[in-house]
């Protein structure tokens, strides 16, 4: 696998996605939450389209990807009926050269916002770090 350092800064989006109450319920059920009406803290993970698109653009397969770290910062809770706008960028690449494998830690940042009552609100930010392993 080639070094992806020169790809830092690549960005995709903005994307738009509608949040329905059904979608929130489906997510709550999948994580065993008893609260079915409030978007759980990790609900923002449903908006990973930009990350998946960047994975493809950078030329690696989803099955090579392991999740290393995930961070969210929250400004405003997601509500049913929101039309979320988000864009994603590759912000950091860390290479680890081992004896048998070459690993790259890639960090993607996504910013989320929503228009409510004709003003634009920040929903929050996500920072996803994945590791790609390539054999030598």
């Amino acid at each position, binding site marked *: 696998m080639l070094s992806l350092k020169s790809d830092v800064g690549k960005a995709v989006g903005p994307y738009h996605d509608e949040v329905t109450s059904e*979608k929130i319920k*489906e*997510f709550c*059920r*999948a*994580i*065993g*939450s008893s609260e079915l009406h409030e978007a*759980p*803290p*990790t609900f923002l*993970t*449903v908006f*990973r*389209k930009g990350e998946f698109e960047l994975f493809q653009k950078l030329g690696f397969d*989803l*099955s*090579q*990807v*392991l*999740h*290393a*770290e*995930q*961070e*969210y*910062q*929250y400004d405003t809770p997601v509500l049913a009926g929101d039309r979320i706008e988000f864009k994603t960028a590759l912000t950091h690449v860390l290479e680890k050269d081992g004896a048998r494998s070459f690993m790259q830690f890639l960090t993607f940042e996504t910013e989320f916002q929503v228009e409510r009552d004709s003003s634009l609100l920040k929903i929050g930010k996500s920072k996803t770090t994945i590791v790609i*392993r390539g054999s030598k």
Partner: protein
Amino acid sequence: MEIQAGSAVEFKSLGPITREQLKQYAQASGDFNPIHLDEDVAKKVGLPGIIAHGMLIAAHIAERAKNFVQGESSLQGFELIQFQSRFKAMVLLGDTPSLGGVVKAVSDQEVTLDLQAKNQRGEVTTQGTARFRKK
């Protein structure tokens, strides 16, 4: 008793991780990485078998954090402002994670919880840090 730095967030156990659960989570989250769904693919990329989505375990840790704060009378009105998770080891089908940890810091305005998911052998698979602030 008022909570303080060092107060325990009691560990609570989840049931065993099942294929059905991972399918349901893939559908709900949109993460269809085949290493969570297809044994052959998982083995082909060098994993011991199907592994759980890290984010499914992270979701459970976040829920544990929220439930803890909601259950403390001194923390009413505190809202989650940051959640971070680190995936240290794989969670396999049939594993029975338990989730808990400790209050790392608390003030009038903020509380930070340091949580983990441990598997049935007591190994930490996932770490989570949740920060809440009084609104």
